[in-house]
């Protein structure tokens, strides 16, 4: 079954090029979970998830003629989705600096546990940690945010990030290094002892 899937999708792409609506619908149904996952991981602030999904699919349909079949359809669509999200992130307005007082109670608890070296306890703090990471990442430039999300939250390899973004391996590594440095700086400013000093 899984062997047939890529061939099916490639066939759907061919038929959708000929304006076959059933094929377009199949592409939508099959690729939606993949696109939604990417969009949710890189959704800009105050942007509608559905609007961004729609933008991704319209780009996919507009560029169907450019799909050469050298990579699986899913890879090709993932790359379009990642680049669409990156463009949307670039259009996002810069957020104000994050301060200790801006954090919710759980967020403050996460930062305190980081400072004291205590391990995060349970799922609640994990969710708070994820929200805090998202808040911190939102203060970075879009490309920096993208590379850290892919490498450190989604645990993708450098090669995978290269394939998804089209950047060179060296660029991925340099960008990740610099982005981490910026994130460290933001996090250090957020710690309560920094706020008091």
């Amino acid at each position, binding site marked *: 079954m899984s062997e047939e899937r890529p061939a099916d999708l490639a066939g759907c792409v061919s038929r959708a090029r000929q304006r076959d*609506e059933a094929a377009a619908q199949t592409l939508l149904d099959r690729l939606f979970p993949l696109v*939604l996952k990417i969009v949710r991981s890189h959704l800009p602030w105050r942007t509608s998830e559905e609007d961004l999904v729609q933008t991704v*699919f319209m780009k996919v349909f507009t560029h169907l003629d450019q799909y050469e079949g050298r990579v699986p359809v899913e890879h090709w669509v993932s790359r379009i989705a990642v680049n669409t999200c990156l463009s949307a992130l670039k259009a996002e307005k810069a957020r104000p600096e994050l301060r200790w007082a801006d954090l919710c109670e759980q967020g403050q608890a996460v930062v305190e546990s980081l400072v004291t070296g205590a391990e995060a306890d349970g799922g609640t703090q994990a969710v708070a940690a994820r929200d*805090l990471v998202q808040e911190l990442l939102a203060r970075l430039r879009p490309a920096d945010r993208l590379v850290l999300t892919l490498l450190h939250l989604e645990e993708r390899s450098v090669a995978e990030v290269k394939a998804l973004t089209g950047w060179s391996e060296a660029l991925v590594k340099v960008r990740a290094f610099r982005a981490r440095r910026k994130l*460290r700086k933001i996090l250090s400013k957020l710690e309560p002892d920094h706020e008091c000093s």
Partner: protein
Amino acid sequence: MNVHEDRLTRLFKAARRAPAANEPSDIPGHLETRILAEWRSSAAEPRGGALALLLRWALMGATAVMLVSIAWASIGPTDDSDNDDDVANVELREDLMP
């Protein structure tokens, strides 16, 4: 610096432990309808595009004709002897003053 790096690493590690949000496996009907409608309307665009292309070529053609006419008027033959009035005047003058 290592302290901050260690804290950042632990923060990412904790964030990765967060349960993934429930992701629907099926596309919502209204979203599918919206996307397909936009796809259908984009199919109609080439006809509009062809019309725009035709108009563009027509405009370029008209501009070219206009430029040739202007050029012809300014650098073309300026001999007024073809002018009927002038010819008539010359003939009249010759008749009156042989």
